[in-house]
């Protein structure tokens, strides 16, 4: 996995935001992840594509430890996620520590998973106020700013049930951003949306990318990947089969499996 040819902004440390090293995971007797290694640099947007069952979503979920690892290591911003060394062995971190690590990693779900018993605004400020202890007024003000940014200031007092799918997903993005993450993970953020709502969500994501947010995006939106991604990762059967800038991957794929997959979806 060579680094991208696209210039990315340099920040603290070695400029690497996510480093996966031989990440493996078995679920229900199936090797869902089979030695996945990749480095994602700060500010980079990496799209993960591939057939269903390839392990894209599972990989994304290991990055914030919603899914554990059987072997390999995963670091975000230089910190090992979910595990610590104890007498030479990897043991799972305490719940509290894992929760802390997750606070700086935003996650956007396919099915939004907004909290239905809270308004849009409360969905956004709840985390900062309750989990991080930001003063409530400050958290509420920032929630309004974020809702304005995703174009939903007028829906602040609406409950998720009264929002469209596209609006719910934009609130979900605002909710993740409210925690001031250093990394955003998107798990098929537009797959559950009606076609006419895909654009509004992608527009918000594109804007985020332009602001140099580091983003890992599992998606079937080839247009988005081609246009916004710095690199595209093709996965199949729990492995990365090809990585490269979108131009190269889409126009001159190196691997037979990439060609096979692209011929079916493009």
């Amino acid at each position, binding site marked *: 996995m060579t680094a991208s040819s696209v210039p990315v902004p340099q920040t603290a440390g070695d400029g690497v935001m996510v480093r996966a090293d031989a990440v493996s995971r078995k679920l229900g007797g199936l090797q869902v992840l089979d030695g996945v290694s990749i480095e994602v640099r700060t500010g980079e947007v990496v799209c993960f594509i591939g057939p269903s069952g390839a392990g894209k979503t599972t990989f994304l979920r290991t990055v*914030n430890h*919603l899914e554990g690892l059987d072997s390999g290591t995963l670091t975000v911003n230089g910190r090992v996620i979910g595990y610590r060394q104890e007498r030479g062995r990897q043991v799972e971190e305490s*719940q*509290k520590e894992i*929760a*802390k690590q*997750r*606070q700086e*990693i935003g*996650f956007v*779900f*396919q*099915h*939004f*998973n*907004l*909290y*239905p*018993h809270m*308004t849009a605004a409360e969905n956004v400020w*709840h*985390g900062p106020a*309750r*989990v*991080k202890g930001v003063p409530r007024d400050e958290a509420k003000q920032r929630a309004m700013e974020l809702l304005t940014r995703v174009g939903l200031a007028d829906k602040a007092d*609406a*409950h*998720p*049930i*009264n929002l469209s799918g596209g609006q719910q997903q934009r609130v979900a993005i605002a*909710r*993740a951003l409210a*925690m001031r993450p250093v990394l955003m993970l998107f798990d098929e953020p537009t797959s*559950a949306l009606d076609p006419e709502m895909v654009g509004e969500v992608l527009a918000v994501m594109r804007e985020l990318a332009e602001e140099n947010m580091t983003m890992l995006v599992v998606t079937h939106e080839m247009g988005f990947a081609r246009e916004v991604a710095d690199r595209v990762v093709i996965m199949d059967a729990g492995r990365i089969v090809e990585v490269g800038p979108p131009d190269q991957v889409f126009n001159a794929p190196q691997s037979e499996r990439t060609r096979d997959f692209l011929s079916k979806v493009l």
Partner: protein
Amino acid sequence: MHDVLASGLQFDSDFFWQSLLHPTRPFLRGLWRTVYISVIAQAAAVVLGLGIAQMRRSRLGVWRGIAGFYIWIIRGTPLLVQLIIVYNGLAAVGVYSFSDVSIGRLTFPGVIQAAVITLAVNESAYMAEIIRAGIESVHKGQTEAALAGGMTNRQAMRWIILPQALRFIVPPLGNNFNSMMKTTSILSVIGVDELFLNAQAVSSTTFRTFEVFIAAALYYLLLTTVWSVVQTWIEGRLNADVGLVRPPSLLQRLFGGGRATPPTDTLAVAAPEAR
């Protein structure tokens, strides 16, 4: 008494209205006991039940086993038998004998302590299953969203899961509380001076059994009706919490009320099932 039985219908309406509209002091005291015993026992049962529900959901088999065993025993034996074991049985074998406790000017008779504890323990087994079912009815994505947002399991339960589970818990809880208020009548067997025992006392001195018990029945009906109103209000609040307005009306609730908005449907809209 013989001529009363011999002379056909002997409904003493004066006595009936007297009992209903001008209840005696002991009768009112009995009614009050029925209310507070039910409320305290139900509240304690919810707290206990929440703990047992969490044990049932524990990752450790030991906890699950203990909770399962508790529920099996409690739900598998009659309340009446449990009452007598706790109040009379424990004293008979010299394990524990309930005695009056005074806190300031309030006195809690031993028999009422035994009654509240037994009702609470009995009800907790049912509440545990209701609460567990409620928690498990909340979409799995909600826990994931909470954890991904940096909450610990405990925070996720407190802020995200339980508030939503309430929508599933309140309707069956309300049913159980309705039963609880009526079930307090069996406390008379250990001598708790509540509504039923009072009615029985009056009936055995006046022989106006029918009038007295119709009046008592109406008082039980009053209690359960008031509770229906309260429950409807709570459910309306919970619906408003998820942005639904249109709680079932009181008439719907009391007389053949279907629920206007079943919780499962509404949550499915907010969080569609994966695949």
